Every structure is written in C-alpha cells, then in structure tokens.
C-alpha cells in the first residue's frame, strides 16, 4: 500500500510540474498574443502554426545568449536569486487540489500532491518568501536600478500581503478549515465562495496582481525608469528563469483564486454526472472545469496588464495601506458578525 501511494504521488508531482511548465510556457505566448490583439496587431505568428512554437524559439534564444555577470562581490547570491524565484514559484502547486478523486486500479487516487491541513498557511508562507528571489537578485546585481527595484518589490509585497492575509481570514472564518481540499469540497455545485465573499475576492485579486509583480503594480520591473529593474544585470537563462518564474507565479495565482473563490474543480451538475456517468468521467470534467477557470484568470491578468497604466510608488502605498487594509478589516468584521448572528 505504501509503495502505491509513493508511485501515485510521484506521478502527480511530475504531471503537475510538467503542466505548470507548459502553462507558463504558453502563458508567454498568450501574453504576447493578447497584447497584440488589444493593440490591433496580429502578434507573433511566424514560428509554427499561428506562432505555436514561439515559446520554444524564445527559450532557444535565451539559451544562446551570452552568460554575462556583473562585477559583483556576491557571485553566489547573484545566481541564487533566479533559482529561488523559480523554486518558490513551483513549490506552491504542491497543495493545490487539481481534482477530487479518481477510482483506478481498485483504489481511490486523490489528485493532490500533499493534502496539508494548513494548506492556506503554506501558500501564504511560500508567497511571502517569494519576495526574496527578487530582493536577493536585485541586491547582488550591484546596480542602483536593481537595488531600487528590490526595495520597491520588497515594500510592495510586504504591504499587500497584509491585505491579502486579512481577506483570506474572512474566507477562512466561513470555511472553518485551512485545508484546500476541504475548501474545494465545500464549494460543490454552485456553492462557490465568490458569492459569499465578493469584497474579499476583490481585495484578493488586487493583492494577487501586486504579489505577482504584474501591471498595474509592476513597479519592480518598470522598463521606463528602472530599465527592467531587478533583472537589469541578468542575461541568458538566469534572466529566463526570472521571466519564467513570473509566468509560473501567474499560473499559480490564477489557480489559487479559482480554488479559493471559484469552486476549484466543481461545476454545476457535477454530482449528477458522477452518479450517472461514473466518478472518473465526472472528475475529468472537473479538471477541465478547473483549467477553464485558471485560463480565464490568466486572461484577466493579461487583460488588466494591457489596459491599466502603472501605479506611482506613493499611489501604490496609499492604495495598499489606506484603502485595502481598512477594507479587508471591515470585511473581516462584517463576516464575523454575520457568522455569529446566523449561528
């Protein structure tokens, strides 16, 4: 029995890793395509049919670039930065419930690498360590633009984590559990958390933009003032790691939002499908439903990026500290009171 669990988990981990990589790869293409369409252009369409091989071409180009290293005393940290960014971006996927369960080979297989009973805390922890990847890389670059970018990234992430955590607490008050699997199970049918926590979701999505360092909060890597920010001094695949980590983060953020607020793998009529067509078909549809939601959120991220201009640093801090945190606190108090009254 122990051996089969190890095999199950190993397969799930490898598949999740591969899928995350694939999604991150094609997110880069999607970003360029969506940017082009929004700007009335066609976008990359020469490599492969409709540009489908563009991510491979991009990766090949990055590999072929010169491996440049600035004159920095922190040679180790300079390499450690992109490594950390990438690792942390991939670590979050461990607790995501990708589907309910399959019934194969005479046993139930749960589609989750690790069902932690503190899954939400784990996600928050990994997300907050994520800032170190950027900070260390920026610091070790020995470049004033990178340093400023590192400062911005750190202050931005720390500020927005508070509001994000508070909006999550309101959600956790309702779910009464920290396990992502149970949160997913509670949202069966159309019983999605978004209908109970709309303001919490709004705060969460805004903070997700800030946490993933994306427009309109991409102050850490603004091309205009900071010449790329923390990756000014990076080239070749180290740069590729940073860029790739951003898209892996994007995918993971979209996943977390779908799991926490948009019913994870649940879709209307799921119980009916499982009863009539069998548990496996019902869950395959569930995985598809989850990926549709994820793709939608990835699209929203990109849509916002190509619509809204970048915030100024003081505006960012104003929004974070003076608007989102009080709003999140209010949301928390109102949720608590309502739960108490309904008991």
């Amino acid at each position: 029995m122990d051996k089969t669990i190890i095999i199950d988990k190993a397969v799930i981990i490898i598949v999740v890793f591969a899928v995350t990589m694939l999604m991150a790869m094609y997110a880069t293409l999607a970003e360029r395509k969506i940017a082009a369409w929004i700007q009335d252009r066609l976008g990359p369409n020469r490599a492969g049919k409709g540009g489908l091989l563009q991510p491979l071409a991009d990766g090949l180009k990055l590999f072929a670039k010169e491996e440049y290293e600035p004159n920095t005393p922190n040679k180790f940290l300079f390499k450690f930065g992109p490594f950390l960014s990438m690792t942390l971006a991939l670590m979050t996927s461990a607790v995501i419930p990708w589907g309910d369960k399959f019934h194969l080979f005479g046993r139930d297989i749960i589609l989750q690498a690790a069902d932690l009973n503190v899954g939400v805390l784990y996600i928050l922890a990994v997300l907050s360590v994520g800032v170190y990847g950027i900070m260390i890389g920026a610091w070790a670059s020995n470049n004033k633009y990178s340093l400023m970018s590192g400062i911005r990234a750190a202050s931005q992430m720390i500020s927005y984590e508070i509001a994000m955590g508070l909006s999550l607490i309101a959600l956790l008050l309702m779910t009464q559990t920290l396990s992502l699997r149970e949160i997913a199970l509670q949202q069966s049918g159309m019983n999605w958390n978004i209908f109970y926590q709309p303001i919490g979701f709004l705060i969460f999505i805004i903070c997700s933009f800030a946490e993933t360092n994306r427009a309109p909060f991409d102050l850490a890597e603004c091309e205009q003032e900071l010449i790329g920010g923390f990756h000014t001094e990076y080239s070749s695949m180290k740069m590729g790691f940073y860029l790739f980590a951003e898209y892996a983060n994007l995918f993971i953020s979209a996943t977390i939002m779908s799991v926490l607020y948009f019913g994870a793998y649940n879709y209307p009529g799921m119980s009916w499908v499982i009863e009539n067509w069998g548990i496996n078909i019902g869950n395959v549809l569930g995985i598809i439903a989850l990926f549709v939601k994820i793709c939608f959120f990835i699209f929203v991220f990109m849509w916002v990026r190509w619509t809204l201009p970048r915030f100024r640093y003081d505006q960012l801090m104003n929004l974070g500290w003076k608007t989102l945190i009080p709003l999140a606190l209010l949301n928390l108090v109102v949720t608590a009171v309502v739960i108490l009254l309904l008991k």
Partner: protein
Amino acid sequence: MSSNTYSLSGRKKTVSDKKLTWSERIYLVAIFKGMMVTLKHMFKKKVTISYPEQTRPFSDVYRGRHMLMRDEEGRERCTACGLCALSCPAEAITMKAAERTADELHLYREEKYAEIYEINMLRCIFCGLCEEACPKQAIYLTKSKQIAKADVSRENFIFGKDKLVMPLEMAIENTKQQNQA
C-alpha cells in the same frame, strides 16, 4: 468671439477640476469601462499587413525605377539631348553622347546616342520630371516594385545603362504583342 469660446474641430472639451464623487474615487467603474474598451479592440480588424504574403496596393501615380525604352525594332530611343539631366532638380542624371556609326543602325534610333547614361539613385527623388522633359519618350519611371537595394558602397548606387536600358527580351515581347493587336 475669442478663441477660448469656440472650437474649430468641434471636438473641444473644457477641462474641469471638480472634486470626484465617492464612486468616481474608487475608480472601479472607470477601470471596468477601460477594460471593456480593450476587450472591444481584441475583436477589431487588425491593421497589420503580413508583409511578404500581403502587400499594400500601390498608388496609381506610383513612380518606380527608371527605364530607358527601346522602340518597336528594339533600338534605343535615347538621343542624349540632355533635357532630362537639365530638368532634374536633384542633378542625378549624367550622360555622354556619341555618334552612331554605319554598323550601329540596328542599335540606336537616332544619329546621336548616349554612350554613358547614369542615374545616381542616392540623389534621385523620383519626381518624374525627366519623363516629362524627354522629347523622344526614351525615359520612363516604371511601376516596378523593385527598389534600389541597400549597399555599403556609393558607387553601386550609380546605375548605368546596364541596369537602366530595357532588356531586349522585353522589347521583343512588346513588339510581338503590338503586332498581334
């Protein structure tokens, strides 16, 4: 009426700095409107032209590379009068005249012909005045989409008779078509 009070384009807007209302200050409505604008653009017709496969249509009055014409018997029309060089505002044309000998009757239509005829493509502005000036209908600006190729040496931009004179095959083809018609 002062210029402040009317608008020539009819699109003049007065700027106001009134205090924003609460709903305007949270910007959510404005953000939503902006996102709808970008969403609309996603489905608009794209302005990009995929160049090698598609090309923009040329204007009817497009003037391309010059050609020194031949007549229906394949003889060069140019008589090296120099009017084209004189009319050229960019002074791009130079030529040297020579006298036709008895055994060159089939090559040149007039008694005098251009031994050297050069157009400096870096100077030419494709105005077409040479074409207008020519009394022998010898020089034309074609509809050819071939442009002078980029090069690193200036000498290569001075086009001589080898590049300017109409190819013989084309002259033969033209005559054939004329005879058929």
